[in-house]
């Protein structure tokens, strides 16, 4: 079980804002005041439609962008205040990323062993050439590839295998935190399950923490301990994955869940999609995330709170 105590927080995102083209007519508020915490050893799922800002959040956390405002605190340190080379290198070792497109994220002109060992070389983690080869082979075996694969090029592999190479590369520097941005969307159904199983196994073996970004809600539910729902650059609801699927409080969450196709013809014939009216979000009332029940957060204005409280009571009554 995950320890949800204050000291076990590994990542704190506080009032993160990420605007593009700031001050210009084409300003985009991709992420607009988002706060959440990730605890050690858990998988935090981030879901939302395209354009909701979930990928931008991931990229801002790994410091590919300089945040417009707000703080990202990883391991007790503000990510944008890392000054010395050592601090930066330490951060990059601790946090790694797995990308969506296994075809575009591997350099086609590098051999697999050099792709995987790049982090090892930069961080001087190998004593000598033999040690480097040994580490690479071990990593490849960890992710279910063969050690003979190490001298091949990316184009010789299938999508699922390439994603395994991407995972091996991320693991090479022994990180504690991995951001996986839609790591399985580009893969076939039968291969998706293989990669998800691998990610789960690695998490158990190495006590990894994941930020899992995806739009496939059933897969996110399966892999995540907690889930945050994003819409228009804002976080609307955060709860444990069971809670959010059983008792979605926010209308948007309910609407999103009602749209997920389920491989069950009887369910599909009876399915009613709940429409969502987004105009409510722009009525100008100040809203913020409120912890309405233990570990269940919802974005609400003051006058909406009683309504959500009532909903929560009704839903938990149904459960009993």
């Amino acid at each position, binding site marked *: 079980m995950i320890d949800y105590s204050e000291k076990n927080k590994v990542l704190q995102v506080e009032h993160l804002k990420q605007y593009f083209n700031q001050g210009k007519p084409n300003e985009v508020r991709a992420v607009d005041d988002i706060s959440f915490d990730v605890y050690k050893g858990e998988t935090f799922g981030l879901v939302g*439609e*395209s354009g909701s800002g979930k990928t931008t959040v991931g990229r801002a956390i790994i410091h590919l962008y300089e945040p417009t405002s707000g703080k990202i605190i990883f391991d007790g340190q503000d990510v944008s205040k890392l000054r010395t080379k050592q601090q930066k290198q330490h951060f990059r070792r601790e946090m790694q990323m797995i990308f969506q497109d296994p075809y575009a994220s591997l350099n086609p002109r590098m051999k697999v062993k050099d792709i995987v060992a790049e982090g090892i070389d930069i961080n001087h983690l190998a004593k000598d050439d033999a040690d480097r080869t040994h580490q690479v082979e071990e990593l490849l075996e960890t992710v279910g590839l063969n050690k003979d694969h190490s001298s091949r090029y990316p184009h010789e592999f*299938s999508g*699922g*295998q390439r994603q395994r190479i991407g995972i091996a590369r991320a693991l090479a520097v022994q990180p504690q935190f991995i951001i996986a941005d839609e790591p399985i969307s580009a893969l*076939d*159904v*039968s*291969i*998706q*399950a*293989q990669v*998800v*199983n691998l990610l*789960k*196994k690695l998490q*158990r073996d190495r006590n990894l923490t994941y930020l899992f970004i995806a*739009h496939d*809600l*059933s*897969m996110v*539910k*399966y892999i995540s301990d907690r889930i945050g729902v994003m819409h228009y650059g804002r976080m609307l609801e955060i709860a444990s994955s069971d809670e959010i*699927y059983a008792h979605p409080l926010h209308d948007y969450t309910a*609407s*999103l869940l*009602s*749209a*997920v*196709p*389920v*491989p*069950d*013809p*009887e*369910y*599909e*014939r009876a*399915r009613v*999609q709940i429409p*969502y009216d987004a105009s409510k979000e722009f009525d100008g009332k100040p809203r913020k995330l409120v912890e309405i029940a233990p570990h269940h957060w919802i974005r609400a204005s003051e006058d909406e709170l009683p309504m959500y409280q009532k909903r929560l009571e009704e839903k938990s009554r149904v459960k009993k």
Partner: protein
Amino acid sequence: MENDKNILEVRNLKINFNTYAGTVKAIRDVSFDLRKGETLAIVGESGSGKTVTTRSIMGLNSPNAVIDGGTIMFKNQDLLKKTRKQMDEIRGNDIAEIFQDPMTSLDPTMKIGKQIAEPLIIHKGMKREKAYAQALEMMKLVGIENAEQRINNYPHQFSGGMRQRIVIAIALVNYPEILIADEPTTALDVTIQAQILDLMKELQAKINTSIIFITHDLGVVAGMADRVAVMYAGKIVEYGTVDEIFYNPKHPYTWGLLNSMPTMDTTGTELPSIPGTPPDLLDPPKGDAFAARNKYALEIDTKQEPPFFKVSDTHYAATWLLDPRAPKMTPPEQIIERQKHYAKLTHKTIDQHKDTHVEEQEEQL
């Protein structure tokens, strides 16, 4: 045509691709029917041949494709024997297609009104004004608001979901008898996907077209299909009604596919996955192509290809497990759950039949 109810009959289709590496046997003896007004879903992984099958129906395969045998009968004519010019007349008129990516299937330099009216002008020889009027009707039908103004917009002025609505309008403007939808919602968000799928169902009822729906998303199949064909390595391995495939699957590959998709209720530390990867069709394996990934494989699977075994009048599966001589195998736990549900379902309908039967008798008395 063998059956009046069929609008399309594909028989023993074999298609090879000549590549530098050798001949890829992409379609290896595929046969199926499409009934009037039904939705047939073809599911399978990438490379299983679902897209190549429909491209052959449309006559749109790339130049290195070689037809190695078979027929595609439509209105008592073999589409494979048609010339390019003859196919041009059928395509977009009797048979239309919705492609996967709404971003690339529209012409970015042409106003959408013209793109929707074009099939009417080309195939029906309609005058411009009349074609545009009908295009406008079609835009309203697929749910584009302010159609009068938006008819003069370019594709980049629409969102992904709206663009897919335009693509659907173009495909349906001639009331085609067959609509091929190749992963039409894969590029869309779930909420938009649900809207587009509802729209397709609604329009199908209105204009009574038959749909071949290609997808790898079994959730979408469950909602859309009347019948389902499962493809693996260039072959159909199982087909039946949607209930038969989802609640009473017989082929181990169908089991694997159904199990590897988590539902909202799936828990546990490991998802049941299918090990390995699909075979290389440059050199297809002997016997059952799925044998290497199949933990239920029998010895005969590596030697001889399984024929189709009949499960019901509408349900067939190509697996040796259905042979009377095969040893008894217990399917995975989740599949047994599905089969229990199926037993309940069929009982219910039988009971209903009984009830009506009794009532009829009572009336007679």
